[in-house]
Structures are given as C-alpha cells and as structure tokens.
C-alpha cells in the first residue's frame, strides 16, 4: 500500500485572514502571469496552480477561465 501525502496550500503571510478569497485570486493570476512570462512548460509555475486549485471554488475558476477565453477577465495577467 502506497502512502499518500495529503497537502493543501500553505499559510501565506500576505493573506492572514480567514477569508482567503484574495489568496485564491492572486494565485490564479500568478499562475497565468507566470505561464505568460516563462512559457507553459516552466514547472515552478505549477506551484501557483496547486494553490489556486485548492483555495478556489471550482465555479470561480470555470468562470475566470471563460472570461479569459472571451477576453473579459478584468485581472492584469
């Protein structure tokens, strides 16, 4: 039996509050900005993806993905 190591996003002192909306949002932006700057194969970018995937509600991510596709995402990536 292999041992699974369960992990979630670590505490980030920029976002000390119980409400982690901004932690989620900033990580989503950081991931896409990182890919834009370093290319999609740049492995360290995946850290941000791991964070937003564990912090963000899936519905939000879907909405933001749709917005990026249609060019209406308001964040600065």
């Amino acid at each position, binding site marked *: 039996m292999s041992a699974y190591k369960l992990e979630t996003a670590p505490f980030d002192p920029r976002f000390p509050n119980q409400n982690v*909306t*901004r932690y989620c*949002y*900033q990580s989503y*932006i950081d991931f896409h900005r990182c890919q834009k700057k370093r290319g999609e194969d740049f492995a360290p970018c995946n850290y941000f993806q791991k964070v937003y995937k564990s912090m963000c509600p899936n519905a939000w991510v879907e909405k933001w993905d749709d917005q990026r596709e249609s060019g209406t*995402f*308001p*964040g*600065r990536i």
Partner: protein
Amino acid sequence: MSTHSNHPFHLVDYSPWPLTGAIGAMTTVSGMVKWFHQYDISLFFLGNIITILTVYQWWRDVSRESTYQGLHTYAVTIGLRWGMILFILSEVLFFVSFFWAFFHSSLSPAIELGASWPPLGIISFNPFQIPLLNTAILLASGVTVTWAHHSLMESNHSQTTQGLFFTVLLGIYFTILQAYEYIEAPFTIADSVYGSTFYMATGFHGVHVLIGTTFLLVCLLRHLNNHFSKNHHFGFEAAAWYWHFVDVVWLFLYITIYWWGG
C-alpha cells in the same frame, strides 16, 4: 417692530421661510425619487425653484435685519460665527463619507474589478492637465478672496470690489473647466465603483463650488450696495470661510482621487 431692547439678542419676527424651505426640501427629495425612478425631472425642478425662492427671500430678510435694522449686535455675530463653524464641520464630515467610500473601494479593490485600481477599462483623467489647472485656479481664488478681505478691513472699496470680482470669476472658470471634463470624460457614473466614487465626490464638490461662487457673488453685490463696513462684515467672512473649505476639499480630491487614484 421696535428695534430697541435692553438686551443684545436678536428676537426674530414671524417668517414664512422655514415653512416654504421645508416644502422646498420635501419637494426636491420627492422630485429626486421621481426623477430616478420615472426619468421625469419636473418635480425636482419645481423643488429647486421653491428652495431657491426661499433662500433668496430668507437671506434678503437677514441682510435687512443686519444692515438696515442693526439687529446683528456683537453678541449675535458670535452666534452666527458658531453657526457657520458648526455648519462647515458638518460639511467636512459629509465629504469624509465620500472619501471613506473611495478608500474602501480603492485600497483593496474587489476581485470582480480584477483587484486593481483603476479597474481595467477605466481611462482616468491625466491629473497634470485640467485638474492641475483647476488646483491652481482655486489656490489663486484663495489669494484673491484674502486680497478682498484685507481691502475691506482697510475700507478700500474699489480693491474689495476687484478682489471679490476676480474670486467670483475664478470660481466660474473652475466650474466651466469641470463641466468640460465631465462632457469629455471617457467613463460615466455607471462605470463600476470607480465611476460611482469619482462622480459622487467630485460632483458634490462641484455643487459646493456653485454654492460658494453664488455666496461670493451675493457678497460682491452687497458690497456694491455698501452693506459692509471695516468692522461689520460677517456675511463676507462666512463666504470666505466657506470658499476656503471648498478649496481644501478640492486639494484632497486632487491628491487622492485624481492623482493617487488615477
């Protein structure tokens, strides 16, 4: 009514203006509701007419009581001073609420705005063009109103006239430039909380400029009718206080909303 008494206080006569003022205010507010819900501005317009007729006649009466009946003794003017100080203080708090709304929305912008300020798509004004000119205009008007005040205290009638004239002129120039900015603006009050806070704050400041300019214009007309003397001119001083207040509010608007927030 006899103007002779053995005390320094001004016991006012019966007057219809508090009642017509209340009717004017109620009509104006009801007119705004009608305007915003049914897109019909007529009742709001009527309320403004009633209010303007009221303030014109009420303050005409006050001028007569002061200048022609001599009812504004030293003790009375102390009350007027406190009244004006407390009124301006309430105005300060009025504008504090708009700055509060602005900083609430801009210091940590909502994620729906992309967590950025100004929000994506808002093309804000260049603060070093017309807004900077407006800052210079209002600062200059603060100088001219002081010129008028010192001339008045030295009984220099013509220089008081000139100082007040240029102050009013600068106030009108400011209003024209703000109107031009509003007409040319690439965003509206409906464009996110940026537009809401921008037009709420600058719009109410603009209304105060209009009122302050009118106040100073009334002082100019009263001065041309020799209502003021070197040691009895609180109407003028109240207008100057009010004008300085409007000036200071603009400086805060310019630094925070136009410069930092743009």
